């Protein structure tokens, strides 16, 4: 009988459990969970702040999920070491757990630069876990002045979440635009404007260099008073355990399309990994929840004796603030075709006759039709792109393709 161990208890871990169980209903599964919570929807912590959801609703799976899946979860413990020869995982209490197949789904951690004086700041928070969110929610008041370091996805979602609960919110970032990792200048400007209209202040091309109690001294020399500091500079994949076992890592744990690491019988999935981006055909960290699940699931299927490839992963983001949505997918480099009108911009990146990426702000209906073009590598010549760029519609496909898509079972 197989003994499966999964390090981590996030989305990738759930994917892994469900993947294993699709092939092997017998083997034992042990999940090592650092957090003292059953698996929850991590990206929902900003909605939790905002009271648009609650702890109960944030459960990613039903309460009997582990039991029904035949899993044992070890809560509050950290896996510290893998012995790939003896095939054992050691926990921080020195327990050794033998495995036949192992999945590393350790996720990522907030990256906190070494700011001078940061240790003297009272109300400082990261924004990665439900515990972070609970703590933040407890502290915030209607008078709070909030400073968020980092205008990326996490920082801005946090800003949105705090919007109705805080006195003021300022977001700073060294980059020249918001959401710099996914939006270009024009699109970012639209989003920034919208955020500013909702009373979020920005300090761009600027960041804190030093803290004096409740004041941040900026690179520009500006001084900003705050009651609450949120550190959302970035995240880093948790790769140490593989690194220490001499597994191959880049910026993340390197996995192939079967989600195998370089170590025998050791798989990895989720935010801790670096894998192939099908849109740019390069190795990337694609720390996104859909990918985490699919990677975990693939790892699980293969651990359970299956033979499944996952080779159509692409970076994707759907993000919205105060009702304005932006979506991006694939690689947005090079020339683009633009469609715009009042309230929206659409940019399509076409390389060698294929759509490789897009960026949409304001008009996102049926964007999955665009995404599918990237994922399925459909030649632009086979579709009516003139129609498609204006409206995402299957009408742009030929009747035959539509018949295939809609006529049968997908």
């Amino acid at each position, binding site marked *: 009988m197989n003994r499966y161990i999964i390090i981590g208890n996030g989305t990738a871990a759930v*994917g892994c459990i469900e993947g294993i169980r699709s092939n092997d209903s017998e083997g034992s599964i042990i999940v090592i969970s650092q957090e003292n919570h059953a698996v929850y*929807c991590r*990206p*929902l912590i900003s*909605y939790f702040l905002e009271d*648009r*959801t609650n702890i109960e*609703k*944030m*459960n*990613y*799976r039903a309460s009997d999920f582990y039991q029904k899946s035949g899993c044992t979860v070890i809560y509050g413990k950290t896996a510290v070491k893998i012995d790939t020869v003896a095939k054992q995982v050691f926990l921080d209490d020195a327990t050794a757990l033998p495995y036949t197949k192992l999945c590393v789904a350790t996720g990522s951690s907030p990256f906190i630069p070494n700011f001078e004086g940061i240790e003297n700041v009272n109300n400082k928070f990261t924004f990665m876990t439900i515990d972070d969110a609970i703590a933040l929610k407890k502290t915030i008041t209607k008078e709070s002045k909030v400073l968020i370091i980092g205008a990326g996805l996490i920082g801005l979602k946090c800003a949105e979440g705090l919007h109705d609960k805080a006195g003021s919110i300022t977001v700073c970032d060294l980059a020249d635009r918001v959401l710099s990792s996914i939006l270009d200048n024009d699109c970012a400007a639209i989003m920034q404007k919208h955020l500013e209209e909702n009373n979020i202040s920005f300090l761009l091309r600027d960041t804190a260099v030093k803290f004096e109690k409740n004041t941040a001294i900026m690179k520009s020399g500006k001084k900003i008073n705050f009651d609450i500091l949120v550190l959302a500079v970035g995240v880093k994949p948790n790769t140490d355990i593989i690194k220490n076992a001499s597994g191959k890592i880049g910026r993340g744990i390197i996995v192939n399309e079967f989600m195998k690491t370089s170590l025998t019988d050791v798989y990895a999935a989720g935010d801790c990994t670096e894998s192939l981006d099908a849109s740019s055909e390069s190795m990337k960290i694609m720390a996104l*929840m*859909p990918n985490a*699940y*699919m990677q975990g*699931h693939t790892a699980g299927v293969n651990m359970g004796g299956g033979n499944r490839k996952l080779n159509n992963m692409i970076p*994707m*983001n*759907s*993000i*919205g603030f105060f*009702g304005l*949505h932006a*979506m991006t*997918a694939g690689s947005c480099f090079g020339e683009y075709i633009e469609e715009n009108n009042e309230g929206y911009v659409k940019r399509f990146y076409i390389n060698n006759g294929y759509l490789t990426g897009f960026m949409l702000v304001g008009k*996102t*209906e*049926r*964007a*999955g*039709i665009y*995404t*599918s073009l990237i*994922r*399925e590598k459909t030649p632009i010549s086979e579709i009516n792109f003139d*129609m498609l760029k204006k409206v*995402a*519609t*299957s*009408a742009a496909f030929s*009747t035959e393709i*539509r018949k295939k*898509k*809609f*006529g*049968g*079972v*997908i």
Partner: protein
Amino acid sequence: MKLIYVNEEWCLACHLCEYNCAFANSGVRDMVTALKGKPIFPRIHIEGDEKISFAVSCRHCTDPICVKSCIAGAISKSDGVVRIDREKCVGCLTCVLVCPFGALSPGEDGIMQKCELCIQNSFDEPACVKGCPNKAIVYEEREGNK
């Protein structure tokens, strides 16, 4: 199992399916009260141009990417039907970004909704199918989906 299929050869783009859908999911007894003077948020919609038209609604995929992608764990598939738990959904639109058919759209409240085959309604077949005047939308079992 039975699923909804469209036959664009017979679609007249009359849009009745959208209204029947909106009505069926309104929970109101008569269509006039349900829909008069309001924008509608159907779970099926007509696409096309002057030449062709067809209705699009959830395909209830065998391996639904929306279920895998939902960041709120709000979409699930059971008994062959992909469903949304509207209590859990936060309206992030990730499902819109991944669905290759464009079958999901937000409701009036911004929370996502999609065709659930009228299973929650009192109809013995989906309202769009029942109301289609030209059998362009059918509810039937097809090869590979027994």
